[in-house]
Structures are given as structure tokens and as C-alpha cells.
């Protein structure tokens, strides 16, 4: 798809020490670099190679993605929250682009 736009689902509120589930999805073709086009020339690899989730600036979950992962990668993971703050999510593309999203959470 033309524009790459991540989707993130995280709860807006939680109690201190609660473990919350975070789901992320991004549209990306995850071109593996193993395929060839109609003329037999290899299609260059272009994947999301790294995903980073941070809370209030502190990384708590990172993933190195590999070429065999399907298009539109979906990741879900958990975080234990002790204080209010902001989750930031970054996807790193092979071409150097960085896609970002953020969600704030209120802990009380």
C-alpha cells in the first residue's frame, strides 16, 4: 500500500503494577529479497528489520525481524506499568524510514 500507517491498541487506563497487553500491526510488504521479477532480476530486499517499544523513553521490548516474516507484521506483547506515561513504538525500515506511533496510559 502506498502509505505506511501503523496501528496500535493499548489500554488507556491501568492500575499500578498491572500487566497490559499491547497489540501492533503495520502495513508493509516485507519483500524478502529472494524473489525475482518478470525479467528474472532479483527484487531487492525491503523489510521492517527492527521494532522498538519504549515507555517514558525506556526501551522494554525490541524485535529483530527477519526476511521470512509475512507481510503486514502483527506483534503483541505485555508491559507491566507502574506509573502514567507514554508508550512509543518505532518500526525501522530497510530503506532507512522510521514509522512511529505513541499511546499514553493513565495509571491510577
Amino acid at each position, binding site marked *: 500500500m502506498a502509505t505506511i500507517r501503523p*496501528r496500535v491498541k493499548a*489500554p488507556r487506563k491501568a492500575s499500578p503494577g498491572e500487566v497490559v497487553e499491547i497489540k501492533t500491526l503495520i502495513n508493509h510488504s516485507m519483500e524478502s529479497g529472494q524473489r525475482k521479477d518478470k525479467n528474472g532480476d532479483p527484487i531487492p530486499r525491503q523489510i521492517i528489520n527492527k521494532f522498538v517499544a519504549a515507555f517514558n523513553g525506556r526501551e522494554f521490548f525490541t524485535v529483530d525481524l527477519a526476511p521470512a516474516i509475512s507481510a*503486514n507484521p502483527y506483534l503483541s506483547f505485555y508491559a507491566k506499568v507502574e506509573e502514567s506515561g507514554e508508550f512509543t513504538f518505532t518500526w525501522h525500515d530497510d530503506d532507512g524510514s522510521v514509522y512511529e506511533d505513541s499511546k499514553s496510559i493513565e495509571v491510577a
Partner: protein
Amino acid sequence: MTTANKAFGLLSAGLLGLGLLATGPANAADDGTRIDWGPYKVDEKRSGYTYAGAQTRAMQDDEFQNPAFLWLERGMDLWETADGAANTSCADCHGDAEESMAGVATRYPIYFDDWGKLMNIEQRINWCRETQMQAEPLKWESDALLGLTAFVKNQSKGMPIDVAVDGPAAPFFEQGKAFYETRRGQLDLACTHCHVDNEGNLIRAETLSQGQANGFPTYRLKWQSVGSLHRRFRGCNRNIRAQPYPYGSDEYTNLELYVTWRGNGLPVESPSVRK
């Protein structure tokens, strides 16, 4: 934290548990005889959902996890976007899609008077674009057209399909039926040979479904993308070594009516997830 929030946390944990549990019974009953498929099975009619694996079904059940919603959200934006010489958007005429488009997917394809033939939703969108918005039609299988179609059809989610095959649509329905029952291609197979005579049986390692249309456009894991029913038709035709017809051709639109009618009573699932 209020009790309601706590309940929400428990609920999501509970849902996750359900998702994991679903693997067990489904694997044990993939012949579909021992499992209650709820709305996905109406009499002898079975949605493609009932042939999908537990993980594929879980992807469809969670609207967040379903990648087709990436397309659908794009369609939602397009609904509001003015375009063409008339500078109008879908919303200018049709308003809130949740109201105006509810039930639409249960009726299409319809007989369209001005054309004197059938029209499906993709064609309807492009007809609106050309005549009302005076804009360029969207290309078949473009992300924009798939997104808009998925968005429009999703407004009827869960409603039973009820296409009309009498009146002016009757001759086209008969043509679609004839297409469905005609042998074609080097393998000399008709649609019926797989989807009627052998539904539920294996073709190599794959289970043949009834070929129901209620989930299209669908996110197909093989395609790693959303695709239309006509794309599926073309794939099927190619598999039996037949020359596929073009997207939006009369042959396929007639066939779409027949195939959709076979699923009358099944719920609209668009956009579904299939293997």
C-alpha cells in the same frame, strides 16, 4: 483504577485464553460434524470460516489483528474524501455509511436498469465515481477500491445474505449458473466438481470449501493482501488451466450473483481472513 477497568483487564485476559483454547476442539473436529459453527453454518451451507484453521479464524475474529482492516481504514478515509470535477465525496450523498450502507452487501450484485445488466459493489462504487463525482474510476484490485469495497460491505457485517435472483436478474442468474456448471480449461472441470461434488474432501493437502462468497473482499494469507471475489475466480480458473476472464467482466459478475445466491442466509463476513 475503577472496577470497570479491572473488569476490562480480566476480560481481555479471558479472551486471550479463549483464543488459545479454540485450537483444541477445532483440530479435533475439522470435519465440521462435532462443532457448533453458530451463524457460520446455515442448514447445509457452510461459510469458508468453517473450513479455516483455528489461527486463521482467530485472526478474523479480532478486528485489530485482521490485516484487512488496514485496507478498510483506508476505505473509511476515502468515503470522506471529495474527488473529481464535482468535488463530492461518498459521504456528501450517502452520509453516515453505518446507516446508509447497512444491508447493502446482502443485496448485491443487483440488476441495474441503466446498464440492462448486473452490477456488483465494485462496479457501483466506480459508477458513482464516474457519474456523480465525475472522477476517474478506481482500478480493479487497487488498494483504494478494495478498501472502499471492504468498508461498504463491512457495514452489513453479520446480516444474512439475501440476493434477488428473480425478475430482471433471472436471465443473468441462469447465465451464472451455466458458467458454474460448465466444464472448462485443460483439466476440464466445472466449479461444481470441486465445490459441490467434493466439498469437504481433500484436494492434495487442502480441504475444498463450498466456495461461498460471503467473506469477500478477503485477506488471503497466500496473497498477503486483500483480494476481490473476481481475483479468486481468476485464480480458480487458472488452477484448472482455463483462460481467466477480466476483472469486472459480465461472465464473472453473473457468476458472482450465482455464487452469492448459493450462500443466501449466511452472514456477511467482509473483510474475512482466509488461508
